[in-house]
């Protein structure tokens, strides 16, 4: 704004920089504490930077195969989860946005109502269901239950409703089938909405904690948050390693976010609220 004076501008810049620093501080601190010597992590008085920068904690935690494995397994699971979730929810979104079929209204209500079921209310009975299906301690129990999401479907559908009909009418007249139009007209245009929904699914999977602790006991399938929680209760003296592990566990998420940040931030629109 051109009405601001120079002083006002510098005040505004200073405040913003300070808030940014405060917001990032806890993360920076945990990453930096990972470089401290074992005895120094909880030493008094408080020091931000280590006396000597050591990579010991980082090499130790990376030398723990269960940690590395849980990072890899969780990452693989999260990518698979995001991909499946996009496939399932986007095809339903397309159907509800464009196709006309018997019982459409009924199906819509059925799907949308599930959005209001609180996760905690079905936590235990979901466990019983997956137990009966023999899914415990498999990758499937981590991935499948959350794939279908009425919320994500709804979000993608809103996006599809804004795609002009004219784009597909030409293809329809040429005799292309509805499924063809979905793959050749809609999917190529879906990138902006897929980034937001895909990252959302990825994050939900990566950060999930309660469900894995209930359904996974096999260390080969340990999820990263489950690993950190267990580490904290079982090896509570190794603070430096816990700090290093926490920092590393946030790293893939932060990198992924930085790659797509432009799309994610511009996707935060509240125009639908009016």
């Amino acid at each position, binding site marked *: 704004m051109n009405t601001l004076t120079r002083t006002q501008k510098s005040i505004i810049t200073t405040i913003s920089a300070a808030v940014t620093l405060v917001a990032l501080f806890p993360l920076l601190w945990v990453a930096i504490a990972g470089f401290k010597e074992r005895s120094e992590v909880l030493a008094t008085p408080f020091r931000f930077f280590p006396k000597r920068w050591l990579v010991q904690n980082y090499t130790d935690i990376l030398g723990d195969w269960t940690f590395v494995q849980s990072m890899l397994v969780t990452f693989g699971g999260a990518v698979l989860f995001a991909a499946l979730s996009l496939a399932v929810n986007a095809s339903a979104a397309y159907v509800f946005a464009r196709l006309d079929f018997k019982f459409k209204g009924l199906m819509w209500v059925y799907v949308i109502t599930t959005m209001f079921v609180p996760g905690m209310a079905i936590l*235990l009975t979901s466990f019983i269901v997956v137990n009966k299906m023999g899914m415990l301690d498999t990758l499937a129990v981590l991935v499948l239950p959350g794939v279908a999401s009425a919320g994500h479907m709804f979000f993608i559908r809103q996006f599809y409703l804004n795609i002009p009909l004219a784009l597909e009418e030409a293809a329809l007249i040429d005799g292309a089938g509805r499924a063809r139009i979905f793959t050749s007209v809609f999917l190529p245009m879906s990138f902006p909405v897929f980034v937001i929904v895909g990252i959302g699914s990825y994050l939900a999977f990566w950060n999930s904690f309660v469900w894995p602790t209930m359904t996974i006991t096999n260390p080969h399938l340990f999820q990263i948050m489950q690993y*950190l929680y267990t580490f904290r209760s079982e090896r509570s003296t190794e603070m430096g390693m816990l*700090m290093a592990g926490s920092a590393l566990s946030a790293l893939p998420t932060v990198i992924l976010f930085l790659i797509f940040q432009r799309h994610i931030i511009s996707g935060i629109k509240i125009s639908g609220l009016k």
Partner: protein
Amino acid sequence: MAKSSSVSKFKQDNKTAYLLLAPIVILLTIFVVVPFFYALVVSFYDWSFYQESKFVGFRNYYLVLTDDLFLESVWTGLKFALMVVPSMLVLSFLFASVVKNLSPRFSGFVKTSVYIPTIISGIVASVIFVFIYDYTAGLANYILGWFGVEPIAWLADVRTALPSIAVPAVWLGFGLTSLIMLSGLHDIPESYYEAAELEGAGTWAKMRHITIPLMRNVILYLLVTGFTAQISQFELSLVMTNGGPLSETVTPNLYILNHFRNDVMVGNSIAASLLLFVVLGSISAIIFRVLNSEKAIDG
């Protein structure tokens, strides 16, 4: 639907539609609908993993509603939400008002940076803040030391435990809330402010008569989603205090989770979770009613 008229020029596509809908419908049925009705049924039974279940009518609901620990946990959840949501909204509103005036280049950097905590898991946030609150070596007591204040056992003291958990909750939610606020602020036409300036309105008058009324729907949305999200919070108290000291930080969902893990009978906790769902729904409805009682002004 207005669009169906132009779509129905073409024939119905039952086969394609059902084929593409099958995955979502099947998955939702197995993992949401069945567990939900199952939970409804179980809430009326004296059900356990180890013995025959017995129909008990509304007894589980009665037991939950007369359990002081459950009522306390709902009260704790409310207090927690009252600490987190208003402070988060005020802070992010002020911050968004500042960021709005930044040069586009710097504001891009600021937006990205403040958003980063939003993507951090509750577990990692808990680990970090437990260190910050450490009695001898933590940052919080170190800062108090500057002012000559005695160290505080943040997470172990009944008076400070819940507010101490509220801080990481604000930290986690601040970025997204600010960006939503900011996008709301950008939607207000600059000409309104210019007109007000010509009339001689100051900063405060502009905020009170233009910004806040036009931000009403955004604030309402953030209030309702914030409240339901914060009352449902349990990861922070699970990892940071495990509900302690005493049961000062047991939020409703932590109460339910603890019962799942420790009780033989689960009908109780399922009844509790269904009740909580009703409580949360009513709170959102009340907030909506109160704030929506005057007609929102269209921007």
